[in-house]
């Protein structure tokens, strides 16, 4: 008797019990939900495209973004009368190729997004963790500070910070980073406070885990989902606000091909050459929309409450 047989249980059990299915890996399940969201997939595709273009700007761009073609001032896009194949989207008031400037502008915008999100996420995460974990006076101090930052309209605050630091791309990025810190701090604090009293955290504490280990290894992984969503949406805020600062003359300075700055410096050609105003705006809108679509999709896919 080497093969064990089923014991003689009378067949009162369901004849065909369904096979026990393994729950899918969380990432697989996430991807399954995410893929069904067409908007989010479109956003992801656009972002990937922009990222690739930004990364290989030198190879993709037909011209140097700063070369001024003196014989090609305010050339309209190729499909309009007077357009030239050499300048697909036309040229600006000093004969620079719009398409090339937009492509290099994409690099700037992606960089702005990346730096702002990294910076604000890091600081916000640290502040939120400290506030949520230690509580008491520390918590009150940190959160009051965040309240103060939040009581100012975000663009106004960015404008003020940029005004204090002086105009420039780096300062604009700093300004925008400071403005969005409270969002990450609040989110982290809420997540940490929700997790701190759960049994598994208490268990690790009892097992002798130090506060740093508790914060980074035990608690942090459990509040990653909302932070990912917030960070994605943070990209769009960063790009939008940095462009607004550029438009107000407080961000990147000409001749930097930053989209907002490009808009500001071509304002007087609004009527004569609408394309110099149109394209940078389209670029901003499409990029920001893509990040917002992606963020919405991520939230729906990561938020178990909304899963059907």
């Amino acid at each position, binding site marked *: 008797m080497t093969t064990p047989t089923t014991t003689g249980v009378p067949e009162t059990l369901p004849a065909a019990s369904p096979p026990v299915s393994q729950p899918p890996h969380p990432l697989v399940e996430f991807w399954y939900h995410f893929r069904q969201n067409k*908007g989010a997939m479109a956003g992801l595709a656009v972002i990937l495209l922009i990222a690739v273009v930004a990364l290989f700007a030198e190879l993709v761009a037909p011209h140097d973004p700063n070369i001024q073609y003196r014989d090609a001032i305010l050339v309209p896009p190729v499909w309009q009368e007077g357009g030239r194949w050499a300048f697909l989207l036309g040229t600006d008031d000093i004969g620079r190729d719009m398409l090339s400037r937009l492509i290099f502008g994409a690099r700037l915008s992606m960089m702005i997004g990346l730096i702002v999100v990294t910076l604000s996420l890091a600081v916000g995460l640290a502040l939120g963790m400290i506030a949520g974990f230690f509580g008491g006076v520390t918590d009150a101090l940190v959160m*009051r*500070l965040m*309240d*103060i930052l939040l*009581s*100012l*309209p*975000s*663009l*106004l605050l960015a*404008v*003020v910070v940029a*005004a*204090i630091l*002086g105009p420039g791309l780096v300062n604009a990025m700093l300004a925008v980073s400071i403005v969005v810190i409270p969002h990450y701090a609040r989110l982290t604090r809420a997540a940490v406070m929700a997790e701190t009293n759960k049994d598994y955290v208490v268990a690790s504490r009892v097992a002798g885990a130090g506060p740093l280990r508790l914060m980074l290894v035990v608690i942090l992984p459990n509040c990653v989902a909302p932070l990912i969503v917030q960070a994605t949406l943070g990209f*769009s805020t960063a790009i*939008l606000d940095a*462009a*607004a600062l550029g*438009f*107000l*003359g*407080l961000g990147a300075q000409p001749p930097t091909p930053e989209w*907002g700055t490009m*808009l500001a410096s071509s*304002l007087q050609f*609004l*009527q004569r050459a*609408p394309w110099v*105003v*149109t394209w*940078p*705006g389209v670029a*901003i*809108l499409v990029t*920001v*929309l893509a990040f*917002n*679509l992606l963020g*919405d999709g991520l939230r729906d896919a990561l938020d178990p409450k909304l899963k059907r």
Partner: protein
Amino acid sequence: MLRFILTRVSLVIPTFLGVTFLTFLLIRLVPGDPIEVRVGERGIPPERLLELRHELGLDRPLWHQFLDYIGGVLQGDLGVSLVTRNSVFSEFVTLFPATLELAALAMLFATVVGLPAGIIAAVRRGSIFDHGVMGISLTGYSMPIFWWGLLLILFFSVGLGWTPVSGRLDLLYYVEPVTGFMLIDTLMAGEYGAFWSALHHLILPMIVLGTVPLAVVARMTRSAMLEVLGEDYIRTAKAKGLAGKRVIGMHALRNALIPVVTVIGLQVGTLLGGAILTETIFSWPGVGKWLIESINRRDYPALQGGVLLIATTVMTVNLLVDVLYGVLNPRIRHSR
């Protein structure tokens, strides 16, 4: 109810003090000595500098200076503009109605369009209308409004000639400012032509400034309605034999309004921030444009005062929203 309001007010006071401290620091964070900033590039003899420092109390300890500043702020003394030599407070008060008028109309526009759109989208969940509203509102939410304003000017003002490009009123008219709100002043003066002109001037800026709040209100209304429509008491309302309109417009909306009102209140900050861009594009003579000009002219006392006053406005509105939230939500009103 009174206790509820008092609690809320007492919570705002530390934030207000913090903001005051921040704006107080602002002028000190600007690179360079405040006096040198004030006298500009003309230069100043060192002994006069010391004198001025003493006069302005800049040689006293920081906390002392802060107390002086707070004392001034509480009396409405926010210093003097370096450029116009006018009191910052009175300049702000003169310009603020223009911003307020624009912001109020923008919010009205956002609510009047966004609320019904969100309600219908929720009731017809999954329909083409729903997808349309969601798509448009996400686009509006992603809109760089400074560009949006330019596009609208290009199309409606330059292209079709329907609306004026900038300003609040045609040069043909002059109306004595009484309230500072152009729509009210023109009506009070009986100048109906001027009233129409003012309305015309308001349309595009209103749409531009209202775009983001509109998107937010529509999305929030939709999700709040979706949540409420699944509640047990909606089933009860239907079981009473009430008509669909009453179930949705009364039983569901009354509950969905609670989060929506909060969101509308929070949009006031967005509006005042967006006013900076909108006023710049449309040459709208409000505090947003004034702030940017102050920055460009390095008029730091004006910037400092303006920031504090705008922050105070936002905090006041948020406080009002908090109270309104209590009025709308019986559970909050009675439990504290």
